[in-house]
């Protein structure tokens, strides 16, 4: 699968905007496992995407093949070998900005 890294996190991927995470064609993994796999190779990713309780940060979204993971079971959402995943800062805004 391919994981698209937002510009704000590329300092932790050596500047790479897309990271390939290997997965056998007949296997699936969860979004949480994708983040952990990324973090093994690129420390710094995990704590910026997840809080210390392992929850997806409130203003971070993960999109899996065009769907927001929050509507697919959150970090338990399933991804496949050919999935395209985007980590993206949420389009948050309002009075406190």
């Amino acid at each position, binding site marked *: 699968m391919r994981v698209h890294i937002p510009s704000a996190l590329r300092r932790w991927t050596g500047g790479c905007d897309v990271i390939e995470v290997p997965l056998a064609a007949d296997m699936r993994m969860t979004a949480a496992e994708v983040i952990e796999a990324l973090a093994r190779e690129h420390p710094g990713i995990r*704590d910026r995407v997840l809080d210390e309780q392992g929850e997806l940060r409130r203003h971070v979204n993960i999109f899996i093949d065009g769907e927001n993971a929050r509507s697919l079971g959150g970090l338990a959402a399933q991804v496949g070998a050919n999935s395209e995943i985007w980590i993206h*800062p*949420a389009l948050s805004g309002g009075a406190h900005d």
Partner: protein
Amino acid sequence: MAMATNAKLSPATGDILLMVGTVKGAFIFLSDRERGNFRMSGPHFPGQSVWSAAFIGNGTSRIIVGNKSNHWGAMVSWSDDFGATWKEPTEGNIKFPKGSGESLNAVWALEAATALGPEVVLAGVDPAAMFRSDDRGETFRLNEALFSHPDRPKWNPGFGGLCLHSILVHPQNPKRMYAAISSGGIYCTDDAGDSWAACVNGLRVHPDVPGATLCPHKLRFDPENPSRMYLQNHPGVYRTDNEGRSWVTIENGLPSDFGFPMVAHPRRGGTIYSFPLTSDEFRVPRDGAPRVWRSRDAGASWEPLGKGLPDRDGFFTVLRDAFSADTLDPVGLYFGTRGGQLYGSNDEGESWRAITEFLPPILCVKTALVD
């Protein structure tokens, strides 16, 4: 005290450093001891809120800040070259234990606790907890005793969150420390943080109903007598003369009992500064005329200091960590507003000038003498 200019900073021994955290980044100001002109660098951490800052001297100058990205979380970062470069921890360096259900929201307080050791930094955070670093702010560990205090279920977040904002370490007996929490109260330890007890006798709660929690806003030591402390409380201004065992009100003479900061003179006992706001319901200076109020008798009487401050149409707020003093003689005082103005005085508050006027809303102002 003239306007700041944005410049690369080249500090010299004896210069005064201002570390200003805003909702959109940090700004660093530097001046010689005359404090006539400040050079500014920034924004550092553009787009991030910077809630706290501290300077660690002892010959190896380090600035540490509590920065927070609304997307990617909060942490403590540091610079060993006055902001030319910054180091962010690869992994979060302030974390609550797994399974605790808590996650870091913001780092409200950073204090170089030199009485505990040259490398020690204490951090106060939201949700309310204290963390200690023994490596100059790079890694931290939770103070378990305060985190698991039996009062914790009674603590409530205010508009700003549930924050531990004031940390005082007794200068002669560093096993004695104080921590103030909004809304939670003031807690004291005599065993370097192994156990904590509330020290709030005499303080009013707001609202005055059963179950309401205390909301201290800023706590400071008297510089000559650490048994004496001063408190801007949510309702009321207070002093203790007995290490927090009881508190007496010292708000008579002030235009209101509400405000956020409290500043103590760095050497002269009994001299303190306050920035009163109209009321809890209307958090701006009374009549739009911002004034710093000074007491030189430990709160028995107060005088307004307004030379150089607006006489009208000044409806800004000064938050609890956005007012501080340097250690020079005469003392310099500095406050930042939610309107983005940074004011300074180099004559102990007698007169004020805008150092700069158009920053993002200011969250904290800390000072240090470059050694």
